[in-house]
């Protein structure tokens, strides 16, 4: 490839380049297709996993959040942007958060607080136009839940009372069952003495009903502490 060959092949490569840019030009100009998103007019489609500032989840069952002010998020936060306080609330056993101040201008959206949360009451919000006129961007996350708080406390109190009575009942039932069992065993022993073949069936049938009664009560109590249900009838059914 001599001098002219070089010039010609160089020229050819330039023409190839121009062909490519023209094809792109044609795609936009004649094909009316461009890749721009006209932002304020069109909104971007947010991914389901989109991470923005955190917020407290409003659980459907209770109509409010489930923050128990354990401060796990405050401790894990690498930016030290969470400040919360709270604790014992009059009337109920459960601890509740009183203040949950979050400085979004510091938050790095790492999600460690969400991982750390024992009651899973934190999630990412879908706010993406995060802009403001100053740097002070401290948000009280529980603000929107305040008005529900009294209602929730009342409901929770009722639930806890019921749970307490249920527990009492369960304890009594267990006591009774124990006594019954003892009685049965005594009986069984007596019967065993009398008749060796009949013993297998009888204690089984006698033991079952109290066991059934005790089990749901036991399983329900912690479940309710985590996700307290507003409408109790379904939960009440096995107890009554």
């Amino acid at each position, binding site marked *: 490839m001599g001098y002219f060959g070089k010039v010609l092949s160089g020229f050819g490569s330039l023409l190839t380049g121009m062909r490519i*840019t023209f094809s792109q030009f044609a795609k936009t100009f004649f094909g009316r297709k461009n*890749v721009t998103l006209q932002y304020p007019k069109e909104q971007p489609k947010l*991914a389901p996993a*989109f*991470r923005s500032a955190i917020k407290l989840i409003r659980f459907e069952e209770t109509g409010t959040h489930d923050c128990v002010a354990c401060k796990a998020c405050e401790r894990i936060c690498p930016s030290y942007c969470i400040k919360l306080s709270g604790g014992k609330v009059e009337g109920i056993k459960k601890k509740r958060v009183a203040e949950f101040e979050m400085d979004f201008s510091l938050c790095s959206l790492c*999600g460690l607080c969400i991982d750390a949360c024992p009651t899973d009451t934190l999630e990412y919000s879908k706010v993406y136009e995060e802009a403001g006129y100053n740097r002070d961007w401290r948000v009280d996350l529980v603000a929107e839940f305040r008005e529900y708080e009294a209602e929730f406390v009342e409901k929770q109190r009722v639930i806890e009372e019921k749970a307490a009575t249920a527990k009492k009942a369960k304890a009594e039932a267990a006591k009774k069952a124990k006594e019954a069992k003892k009685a049965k065993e005594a009986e069984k022993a007596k019967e065993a003495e009398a008749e060796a073949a009949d013993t297998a069936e009888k204690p089984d049938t006698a033991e079952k009903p109290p066991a059934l009664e005790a089990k749901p009560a036991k399983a329900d109590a912690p479940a309710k502490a985590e996700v307290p249900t507003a409408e109790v009838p379904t939960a009440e059914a096995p107890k009554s």
Partner: protein
Amino acid sequence: MTNAVPPEATPGGGDGEVYSLNMGPQHPSMHGVLRLLLDLKGEEVVKAKPVVGYSHRAHEKMAENRNTLQFLPNTSRIDYLSGMIYNLGYCQAIEKILGIEVSERAVYIRVIANELNRISSHLLWFGTFLLDLGGITPFLYSFDDREEILDILDQVTGSRLTYCYGRFGGVTMDVDEDFLARTTAFLARIRERLGMYDDLVAKNVILRERCINVGVISTEMAKSYGVTGPSLRASGVVYDVRRAEPYGGYEKFDFDVPVLHEGDTMARFHIRISEIEESCKIIEQAIKGIPEGAILPKKMPKRFKIPEGEYYFAVESARGHFGMYIVGDGTDVPAKLKLRTPSFSNLSAMPEALAGTMLADTIAIVGSIDVVMPEIDR
């Protein structure tokens, strides 16, 4: 960083021919906040002195004041262009120290995420490199492609740049069929586009004139400076941490380590383009072989205490060998965490590589080694 003209930059020998030019940190083509103090003789660079430190954020100090988990969000901010690789690399280091088992599915997801991030980083480099050479259009084409990767990663990690996707033992979120389908579609797209870039850019006579035999880094020089990554492979050394010290499941995948011997800007260009192809190959295999399973271990400790001792783990970032030297003292706060970043070593070779080049080449060479300033300053 105050003295505008250091004593050695003043005209030498009294002939008044050498003058100093201060490029950056505010300059259209200085990547991030790099500042170059150039001694010029006409258009020829007599001496180049990089001045760094404008985005120093004390990551190493922060690591000594946070527990291991809290340092996690920092990792993807060391090099914001391949944040995923750094993030997952840090997770892998802690996992190796503590002996945490990572599920097979999480390993595959990590590989896919890593390689997608590598492609996006290389695409960004491609665009900005062309921008440095005055070609504006390829920049937008490559950003269009990169946008697709960001969208794909956004879908699963929830953010576009500073991912914080890894957790010790796995990843935060599982991938679904849609993600895999989109990734497969993207691979087809990027392969087609690479053909286009080849015609538009790599074969272009102007680019070839600008790149061939410009900024040659010899093998000896690269080794002495500890240059790693594509810049080292363009200088004829087959060294890729993924191959040399396989980590994070890379030993299961079949890929080549591209290598060229010219050591010039064009070689570095071609290495990165071939690396995009290799990454595509890895992702393809990972998508094919991704098993079902959990993405995080069921039971995890609350605190990750580093046993007393010294540890060094490296990963291959988009720019080269990223090493973490961790010293543990039995608590969950590292006594020392040194980040050995590739751009730091790569840029330290620049004064020698730039001497004797033209002013316009300076931009091309600094662009071709692909420095990311926050990674240098840390």
